[in-house]
């Protein structure tokens, strides 16, 4: 599987993260998104007329929407990361995959304005981002009340992976995560997964690695 990738793109990171968690090897093709705008060049527009990344190429299959890519990789390599046939799980998973696009446009939009000076109404993007974070916090609090940690079913799924990066990087768009206790606990549970990988702005849990001082304590 070939992933057209950009290190600072949260949507590309979703794909790299799921692949790592599932132990799937990706062939990465670095795209010069900024400042080169390579995703708007002829070669990549031929693959993806939308001019966006990530792009996943697996033999004849070409996918350009991150939620679709997550579903595809999970279907091939990690069925338990998808909803079961239970209607409640199917609905909840689709709900959160769609919700992840709101995170992308609001929090991701604010991030592009703040970090890469893209045009946009920063205050409006931040307000929409805060509304989405409040919604996610309320949902995760309700999940905690019933003893659950993740968004769908009783385990981590692609719904969590789809929502995690833009939430974790909200401060890049000057949106604080401080008020959201349940989001904080949920993000920690994702970062505690075996084979979790980082991206710039999202670091691993250092305390899970052996204490470098333990030897001389």
């Amino acid at each position, binding site marked *: 599987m070939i992933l057209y990738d950009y290190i600072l793109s949260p949507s590309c990171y979703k794909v790299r993260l799921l692949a790592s968690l599932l132990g799937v090897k990706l062939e990465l093709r670095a795209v010069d998104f900024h400042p080169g705008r390579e995703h708007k060049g002829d070669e990549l527009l031929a693959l993806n007329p939308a001019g966006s990344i990530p792009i996943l190429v697996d033999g004849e299959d070409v996918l350009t929407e991150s939620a679709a890519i997550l579903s595809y990789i999970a279907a091939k390599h990690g069925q338990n990361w998808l909803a079961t046939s239970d209607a409640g799980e199917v609905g909840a998973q689709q709900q959160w995959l769609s919700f992840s696009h709101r995170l992308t446009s609001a929090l991701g939009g604010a991030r592009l304005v703040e970090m890469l000076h893209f045009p946009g109404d920063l205050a409006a993007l931040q307000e929409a981002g805060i509304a989405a974070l*409040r919604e996610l916090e*309320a949902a995760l*609090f*309700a999940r905690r*009340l*019933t003893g659950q940690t993740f968004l769908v079913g009783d385990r981590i799924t692609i719904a969590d992976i789809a929502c995690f990066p833009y939430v974790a990087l909200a401060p890049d768009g000057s949106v604080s995560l*401080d*008020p959201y*206790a*349940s989001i*904080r*606990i949920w993000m*920690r549970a994702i970062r505690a997964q075996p084979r979790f990988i980082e991206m710039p702005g999202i*670091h691993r*849990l*250092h*305390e899970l690695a052996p*204490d*470098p*001082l333990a030897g001389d304590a």
Partner: protein
Amino acid sequence: MQADERTQWVPAAVSTDILDGTVVPAALPTGPIAVWRTASGELHANGDRCPHRGMRLSHGFVRGNSLSCIYHGWRYGRDGGCEHIPAHPGLEPPKSINCGPLPVAEANGVVWVAAQAPEEAPAEIEGFEALKSMLFCATPAAIAEAAGGALKTELGGTPAHLVTAERTPSETFVVALVPTGTDVASKLAAATALEALRRVTESAT
């Protein structure tokens, strides 16, 4: 901030929102703080600023009985004193390097922090426990008014107390308390009602 305000307990977090071996951000009127639990669950609070480079310690991590800064790994103990500087592993850090420990207490499932040690423990509200914290973009007075004139109210049919702390002139930290032993469905209804109260309060502001 007046001297007597410094010795007042301020609600900073919900106890169950701070897992063992983790650190969270909070705030006092004097500024941002980091509240953390050791691996065995002991609660501590200090200024949210590493004395080294000013990085927020709430971005850091807890190992055993120590809080480490995410930036250069400076490590602080329960007394706030620096225990270890990774770039100078042989150095015993001077006593003057301290992240400023703060008085901290738990009551009703709420974590209370003060800038200076108050004379008494935080006041208990008999029979109630913390449900959920929420940041309102409103003043405490506006919240009390929207809640029916007092912070003793009801949420979704359940009796509730609201504990508040003004964080900025336009932001108030709120913890909703419900009776101990409230069932899950009533807790959910109370949390939903708290969201509605925030909407009403903020749209009135």
